[in-house]
């Protein structure tokens, strides 16, 4: 009975929210070797401004605790839009794309900008498990410098996982995978023709 009582106590310890903010370290590029999908042409891509147009722009989400109360998740310096832009640059670089600094010496062939329509995480703790859910909605626009044409894409990402012991790293991994999946869709559904980004024809 002592063993059972001890396990129960451990399970319940820390289950009340105190309103603290947990910073999430988002990092979409996997550490392991990943197959690169370089565009066929040496296209220079710049990441322009990403705008946060979420209806609620405070933080990234909440954790509702087993015994009541909440705590919050956020990215360092509370700039999710900048974070997403950096993550996209990291992702494309890892995929072998030539990502250049916007406004730098090199003139970009394609400038990617975007709007964050949704970016929300939720961790709901219950007896014996915590359900992690995340939802993203990104509107990404690619403007081709050579002909001023524009490719637009709206990507809805979602992820979920149930864990027994909640760890913020689990949440980070889910968000990272959802964003990487969305960025991957952007890469999959587009192609480069004469240094211009185009939608792949079905």
């Amino acid at each position: 009975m002592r063993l059972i009582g001890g396990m129960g106590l451990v399970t319940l310890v820390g289950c009340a929210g105190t309103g603290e903010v947990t910073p999430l370290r988002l990092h979409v590029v996997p550490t392991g070797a990943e197959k690169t999908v370089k565009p066929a042409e040496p296209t220079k891509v710049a990441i322009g401004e990403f705008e946060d147009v979420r209806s609620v722009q405070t933080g990234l989400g909440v954790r509702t605790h087993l015994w009541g109360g909440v705590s919050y998740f956020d990215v360092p310096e509370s700039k999710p839009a900048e974070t997403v832009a950096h993550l996209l640059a990291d992702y494309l670089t890892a995929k072998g794309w030539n990502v250049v600094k916007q406004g730098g010496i090199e003139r970009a062939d394609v400038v990617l900008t975007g709007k964050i329509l949704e970016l929300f995480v939720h961790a709901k703790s219950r007896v014996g498990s915590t359900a992690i859910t995340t939802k993203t909605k990104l509107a990404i626009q690619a403007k081709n410098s050579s002909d001023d044409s524009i490719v637009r894409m709206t990507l809805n990402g979602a992820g979920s996982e149930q864990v027994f012991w909640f760890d913020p790293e689990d949440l980070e991994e889910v968000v990272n995978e959802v964003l990487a999946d969305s960025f991957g869709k952007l890469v999959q559904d587009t192609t480069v023709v004469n240094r211009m980004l185009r939608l792949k024809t079905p």
Partner: protein
Amino acid sequence: MSLKIRRQCDMLILWLIVLTIVSGCGGRRITTAVEDQAFRPGPSPVPVDEVTKVVPPTRVEESEVRLAERSSAPEPPAIPAPPPAEPPAELSDVYFDFDQYAIRGDARSALKRNADLLKSQPNQKLVIEGHCDERGTSAYNLVLGERRAQAAKQYLQDLGLALSQVQITSYGKERPFCTEHSEACWQSNRRTHFRQP
């Protein structure tokens, strides 16, 4: 409660806890759906209601300009000179209509002469520069200039010029021949120019 029943209760509770832990670990599910995709082509160049046809600068004028440029250069040495930096002055520029890259009738004869000259010098490499007038965006004109150069290259190749001899480039509206804001000036800028690499 006997010791045996108590142990059975403990085991049952332990199994319940284990079951709870196991059920609390679900697999990760990640999905992405494309809500919409759209492509919007670039803007068309500024339309012109009336285009005045003008005669492009003649070869004589071109030659005069180039001769004037050369006159400021130092005198060539007595020993045989290296190949000139410019192709022979007889290589004519080719002119285009506004917002067009189709080879005009007057350009065909000029290109034919150019092709004949270049075929007589099979080792002569050539760069075809595409140029545009000042109207329209820089990006649009870069593409238009490239298409003009490509059209001239294709025409030369159709006349039997070797593919390896010719390269193309585009300067769009960045290197105008004439800087006035008149139709005559614009016409002289809508051209392909031929030079050595």
